[in-house]
């Protein structure tokens, strides 16, 4: 494995058992993601994009094959070890933001830091930096119900980057936003990738969104189809 490789899927298969039926989503999927990459994953609905992203994030387990991250095989980790691994390495951005409605922006962003040993002052400093990066310093005390979808997603981005994870995983991050707001969010992701060296994997339906990525993988019928375009 080269020094630059962050993520690697080897012969990964995934199937769900529904009653007596066995639904195979992937069968022998292989994929490599380098450090500093920005990958968009596209494909028809039901093709397994979310399932793939969940396996990368250690939220779902493959049925077969191996998932390697930075030299560690994560598909065989215990649930507790996987949880700690997520806390250290992964930032998630969800389609519906998934902010805690009872917390203000600042507290939402602080959540991943509650899992670290940082002091309160240190946490506050990191939260301020992250909120400044997404341009929401003036909204620190706002509740999510007082913010637009775009603002909520920016809070979510701040939450995803505040603990400085190696990898950011986004599932349809702009799926719920209008074009202009979506572009703002995508520019922000691009900036994180280009200027802050974050590796990003983003699932999207939207070809315009995919253009912000360095490359796009098309998932169909359990395989990446050869329409890979390198930017």
């Amino acid at each position, binding site marked *: 494995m080269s020094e630059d490789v962050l993520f690697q899927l080897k012969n990964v298969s995934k199937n769900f058992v529904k009653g007596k039926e066995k639904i195979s989503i992937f069968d022998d999927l292989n994929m490599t993601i380098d450090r500093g990459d920005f990958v968009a994953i596209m494909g028809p609905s039901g093709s397994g994009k*979310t399932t793939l992203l*969940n396996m990368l994030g250690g*939220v779902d387990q493959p049925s077969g094959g191996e998932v390697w991250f930075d030299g560690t095989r994560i598909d065989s980790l215990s649930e507790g070890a996987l*949880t700690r691994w*997520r*806390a250290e390495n992964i930032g998630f951005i969800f389609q519906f933001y998934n902010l805690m409605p009872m917390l203000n922006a600042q507290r939402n962003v602080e959540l*991943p830091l*509650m*899992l*670290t040993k940082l002091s309160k002052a240190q946490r506050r400093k990191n939260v301020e930096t992250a909120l400044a990066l997404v341009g929401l310093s003036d909204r620190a005390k706002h509740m999510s119900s007082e913010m637009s979808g775009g603002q909520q997603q920016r809070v979510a981005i701040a939450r995803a980057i505040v603990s400085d994870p190696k990898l950011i995983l986004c599932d349809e991050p702009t799926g719920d936003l209008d074009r202009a707001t979506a572009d703002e969010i995508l520019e922000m992701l691009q900036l994180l990738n280009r200027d802050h060296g974050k590796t990003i994997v983003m699932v999207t339906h939207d070809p315009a969104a995919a253009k912000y990525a360095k490359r796009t993988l098309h998932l169909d019928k359990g395989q990446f189809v050869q329409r890979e375009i390198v930017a």
Partner: protein
Amino acid sequence: MGSLIAQIVSVTLMNLGSLRRRLWMSLAMVLASAVVVAILLAFLAMAKGFEETMRGAGSSQIAILMREGSSTELNSVILQDQVNLIGESAGVARDANGPLVSPELYVIVDGIKKSSGTEANIPLRGLNKTGMDMRTNMQLVEGRMFTPGTNEMVVGAGVLREFNGFEIGKEVRFGKNLWKVVGVFSTGGNIFESELWADIKTIQSHYNRGNSYQSIRTKLQNDSDIKPLQDSIEREPRLNLEVQTEQEYFASQGKQLQYIATFGWIISAVMALGALAGALNTMYTSVADRAKEIATLRALGFSNFSAFCGTIAEAMVLAVTGGLLGSLAAFVFFDGLNTSTLGGSFTQVVFSFEMSPDLFLQGAILALAIGFVSGFFPAWRAARMPVIVAFRHAA
């Protein structure tokens, strides 16, 4: 892992922060817990108050003698020559006028309770001057003592409080006889306050008791030392009497109402099961309501243990809040509440409910148990919540 506590605390605070979304269900759980705890405390306070009243009545310096096999004064008979023999026994205190022996009679009369308007039994005790002097905590709070040989009586403060028509100057008819209330006495809140006192000779003649009595009280020569008295009773075949200190006697009577405490626990346990069913429902709903938040936190790296603890903590907070409210209600409504119940001799004992810290502790234990049990299984579900729920396409 130093952050574990921080995780649990922040998850718990978030859970409590989301309570507003489940306001009515959560309030129902608080209320159910409050009711169960209040009921338990009411029973316990009743048993406690009764025990205290009975315990306070007994002196360790006084021995009470009844016929062998009689557990209460009511079914005991003692004759005059037995009284004389006791006067000559060892271990009995004397003063200038002779042995301190008080033969007493104890009959039952009817009174109308103020609270319910129904008839209830009141003991009418016949005793002489020695008997009254022996009760050192007795005080006339109003009026004067009865005059021997007349139909006068003094009433206990408890009787005056709980029954109609015993005010000073009132005339009361028991059977064929008319009695006049001339005084009110207190004995510091103990069981004697539930009695009426009159001259023993008068009662003997009105109730055709000839020269018989029901119990003897004697002052002991040495505090708590009934051994010499017991020995002389054993040596004398004409004395088929049982002797115990007054303290022992009342303590055993006070224990009779321990069953109320047991009964209270049983009733509350049954009610707690009902409350538990509701509480479990509340907590399962809470977990379903917070599913996406739980899963999101898990995705961010919060442990399933913190999800478990947060849910348990929420249940405990609701149940204990209820428990506190229930204790408070029990305190406000029941502490010091006067009531009367059937005492050892089928008569009314007037006593107060008594709240104490150890009762609150028992209430708190019950509330914690409700919280823990109702939180446990929902918390288990929260801990097993699949993280992929966070990605579900439903807002």
